[in-house]
């Protein structure tokens, strides 16, 4: 689950770095986690912070930024599955995050908002817009393949 979230917000090798950093941080912090904590939700929020760290480290070689890249380059191979991954990569950052944290990570919209900023309603709208765009892009890609 965490790897799918990381892939959706970061893509490629950066996602694996973020996954590793997430679980390493989780391993360090785990003994202090309250017994009744929702571990999966907690992991998603750790993954969010680590994704930003990884993106920042990657960007340091180019231009310093304090956030995830606005949009990601598409994964290389074609094939239907990767086309959707490419479509996710092409979403604007907030939509990508809202889709990843809510649909892949299972966070309720309020918690998505706590993580990416803004209101729960804005997070819900970002996720809905993202899904709508994915459906459209993805459908076009399938149609392209058919023709």
């Amino acid at each position, binding site marked *: 689950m965490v*790897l*799918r979230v990381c*892939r*959706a917000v970061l893509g490629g090798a950066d996602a*694996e770095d973020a*996954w*590793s950093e997430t*679980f*390493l941080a989780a*391993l*360090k912090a*785990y*003994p202090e986690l309250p017994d009744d904590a929702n571990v999966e939700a907690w992991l998603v929020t750790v993954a969010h912070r680590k994704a930003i760290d990884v993106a920042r480290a990657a960007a340091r070689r180019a231009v310093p930024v304090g956030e995830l890249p606005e949009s990601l380059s598409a994964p290389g191979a074609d094939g*239907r*599955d*990767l086309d*959707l*991954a490419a479509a*996710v990569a092409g979403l604007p950052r907030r939509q990508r995050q809202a*889709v990843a944290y809510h*649909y*892949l990570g299972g966070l309720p919209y309020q918690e998505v908002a706590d993580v990416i900023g803004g209101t729960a309603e804005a997070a819900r709208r970002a*996720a*809905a817009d993202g*899904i709508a765009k*994915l*459906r459209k892009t*993805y459908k076009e890609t399938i149609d392209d393949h058919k023709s």
Partner: protein
Amino acid sequence: MITNHETEARELLEVLPAVTEAELLALRDRLADSAAAQGVLDVAYRTLDTPVGSLLLAATEKGLVRVAYQVQGHERALYSLAALVSPRILHAPARLDAVSREIDEYFAGRRRTFDLPLDFSLSHGFRRAVLSHLPDIGYGHTASYAAVAAAAGRPRAFRAVGTACATNPLPVVVPCHRVIRSDGSLSGYAGGPAAKRALLTLEAA
């Protein structure tokens, strides 16, 4: 309607490439390496196939802390390690290389004593005292519960010796299988009676 949207969205995202087993294994190895390097790998574990079934082996930085038979439940053993030792547990075979090699040699009949650092954090008091005396029973020999009780300094505590053996966190390596009834019958064993017989037969060969 909202739930409908949610379901459709989830169905769409189902198409995203799945995480393969190989990818997860590679990530898991990488995590174990960095966790060990940063000193946050409190318990490393692996499983080892042996003639008495798959054994779970777990080690802290101090030494081997747990050996569990399949019949004892590997998951259960891991849960109790998490509760009693530390929740920082990862599948990390490297720390168990020496342990695995010695156990392999033992089952191949090429090793009679184990030369491994042991971590007795899972045993306390008299039980720990009993376990510390078990390696005195040599390879190929057996001792009665009463004899072990006497060796541990409490000759009448043979029932407690039975409990110490039954709850031995390090079977095979700490040889509780060499403790049998005074009448020569095998009595119980953490790995089941067949495993106990197999170990004693191996050592008698």
